[in-house]
């Protein structure tokens, strides 16, 4: 029966591998789902003592909630949902470690400490609890930030680092107490204390990180929940959890690095916070000098003379659910023999690949989606670049040697003959800084919700 665990592990390995290529990704997810099913059946077959009431109640309740969340969440809120799901997974690992201690016959009476069972469980138990709880609260802070809530750290400057150090050292001290105490009462108190300290630490660690960096944080926390699972595996002595947790943890870390690289920032730079964080100063309309405003009719006239148009989608497209209407406009232009492309910045939206998912939903052909490196040289041959709800990823301020987004690769939309920016207001993007692009002579601003503006343009283009 134990060999079913090996089968599940292999299914996960091939599943992840296949998830990394467009052609095989659906199949990859199927393999991984099958792996999970095999693992769960194997666990039920192998476990020598099963509390069916608890398991059936948990599976029905958890499965129902998961089903509801996955069915009901709109595409725009998927990043938030992934963050929340990840938090649940992390805390489940912490609870597995706690539950394993509580069901240990030696530990449930006085006279034995966790340390007596060996150095490995003595190290793994507190780590599983810590990482699991940090993942839980960190993910929910990320969830809040992704849904646009302003959350600020209670401490600033040096006091902030001191607060993190105090919490971290406190958690380590409690961990030592937890694994050495021989009193079962103290053991429970220590576990509660450790969970609480770690929960607060998770909140504090994610608080100062800017909203623009949340995708990286979610990816990192995703890696954490894998690691928490691996340590829970050490606690209960399950090679399956160790292997799968370590693999997911490592894969998550690599993905996090890929994402940081796309923003030309280092992980430590992201984690120390700053960009779009609570310290960034938001500027407003007064900072702009020569804004040129336009309506859908004028844009339609500009489009009338264009031979090549590039759409640059951003989070605003997702918020306004404008992915279908942008495709309608693209189709109209294609019918008029205009070359239409979509420029996809690697971190546009709230998660890497967010725009691809959204545009795929409205059936925009894959070959119209151009990645940043591929299209950047082409903007000088582009007649009209239409920016739909994007800001920081087209901000020329990134080319300056200093500033919050200095060095971040951007789409060179300002090289296009005419730049159309559809945006609700002049408010800054997630990075919280001014965008000099809006002041350019060849930039036309359409102040509107992305969907309304595009619908207007569709009507006007039809009338041409």
């Amino acid at each position, binding site marked *: 029966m134990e060999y079913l665990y090996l089968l599940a592990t292999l299914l996960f390995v091939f599943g*992840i*591998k296949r*998830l*990394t290529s*467009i052609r095989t*990704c659906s199949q*990859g*997810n199927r393999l*991984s*789902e099958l792996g*999970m099913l095999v693992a*769960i059946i194997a*666990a039920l077959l192998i*476990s020598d*003592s*099963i*509390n069916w009431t*608890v*398991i059936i*109640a*948990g599976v029905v*309740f958890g499965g129902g*909630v*998961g089903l509801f969340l996955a069915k009901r969440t709109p595409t725009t809120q*998927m990043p938030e*949902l*992934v963050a929340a*799901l*990840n938090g649940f*997974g992390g805390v*489940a690992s912490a*609870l*597995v470690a706690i*539950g394993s201690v509580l*069901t240990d016959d030696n530990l*449930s009476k006085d006279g034995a400490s966790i340390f007596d069972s060996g150095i490995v469980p003595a190290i793994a138990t507190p780590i599983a609890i810590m990482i699991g709880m940090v993942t839980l609260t960190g993910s929910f802070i990320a969830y809040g930030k992704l849904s646009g809530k302003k959350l600020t750290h209670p401490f600033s400057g040096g006091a902030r680092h001191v607060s993190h150090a105090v919490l971290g050292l406190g958690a380590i001290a409690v961990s030592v107490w937890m694994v050495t105490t021989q009193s079962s009462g103290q053991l429970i108190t220590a576990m509660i204390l450790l969970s609480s300290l770690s929960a607060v630490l998770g909140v504090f660690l994610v608080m100062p990180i800017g909203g623009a960096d949340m995708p990286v944080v979610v990816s990192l926390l*995703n890696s954490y*929940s*894998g690691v928490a*699972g691996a340590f829970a595996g050490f606690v*209960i002595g399950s090679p*399956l959890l*160790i292997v*799968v*947790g*370590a693999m997911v943890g*490592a*894969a*998550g870390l*690599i*993905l996090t690095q890929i994402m940081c690289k*796309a923003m030309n920032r280092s992980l430590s730079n992201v984690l120390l916070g700053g960009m779009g964080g609570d310290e960034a100063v938001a500027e407003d309309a007064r900072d702009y000098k020569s804004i040129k405003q336009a309506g859908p009719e004028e844009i339609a006239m500009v489009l009338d003379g264009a031979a090549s148009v590039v759409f640059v989608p951003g989070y605003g497209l997702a918020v306004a659910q404008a992915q279908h209407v942008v495709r309608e406009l693209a189709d109209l232009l294609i019918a008029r023999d205009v070359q239409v492309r979509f420029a996809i910045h*690697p971190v546009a939206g709230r998660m890497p*690949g*967010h725009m*691809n*998912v959204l545009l*795929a939903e409205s*059936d925009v052909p894959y070959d119209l*989606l151009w990645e940043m490196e591929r299209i950047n040289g082409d903007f000088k041959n582009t007649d009209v670049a239409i920016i739909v709800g994007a800001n920081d990823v087209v901000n020329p301020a990134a080319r300056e040697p200093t500033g919050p987004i200095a060095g971040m690769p951007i789409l060179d939309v300002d090289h296009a003959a005419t730049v159309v920016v559809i945006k609700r207001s002049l408010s800054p993007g997630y990075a919280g800084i001014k965008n000099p692009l809006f002041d350019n002579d060849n930039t036309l601003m359409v102040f509107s919700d992305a969907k309304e503006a595009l619908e207007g343009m569709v009507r006007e283009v039809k009338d041409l």
Partner: protein
Amino acid sequence: MDFYFLMIFIFVIAALLGFELITKVPPTLHTPLMSGSNAISGITIVGAIMAAKADQTVLAQIIAFLAVSLAMINVIGGYMVTDRMLGSFKKKGKK
């Protein structure tokens, strides 16, 4: 060989395997991959099932119930969301 030594051994090898699995990923797949691997981290459901032993204290049963439920939310939610994301690619592929 010591049982724990073997576990640390496979932990290290599995981590290296994880690093090697993800090398080139097209940006399109970053989000589904994140979501898909998030669902896999719900593997802790196996640990939760192991922890839900019969004849335990009420506290231990509550903890086990929470562990099973939360891990299950992660598994079901994670896989279904990933399927939804990938479904939109598939539809396009057929055209």
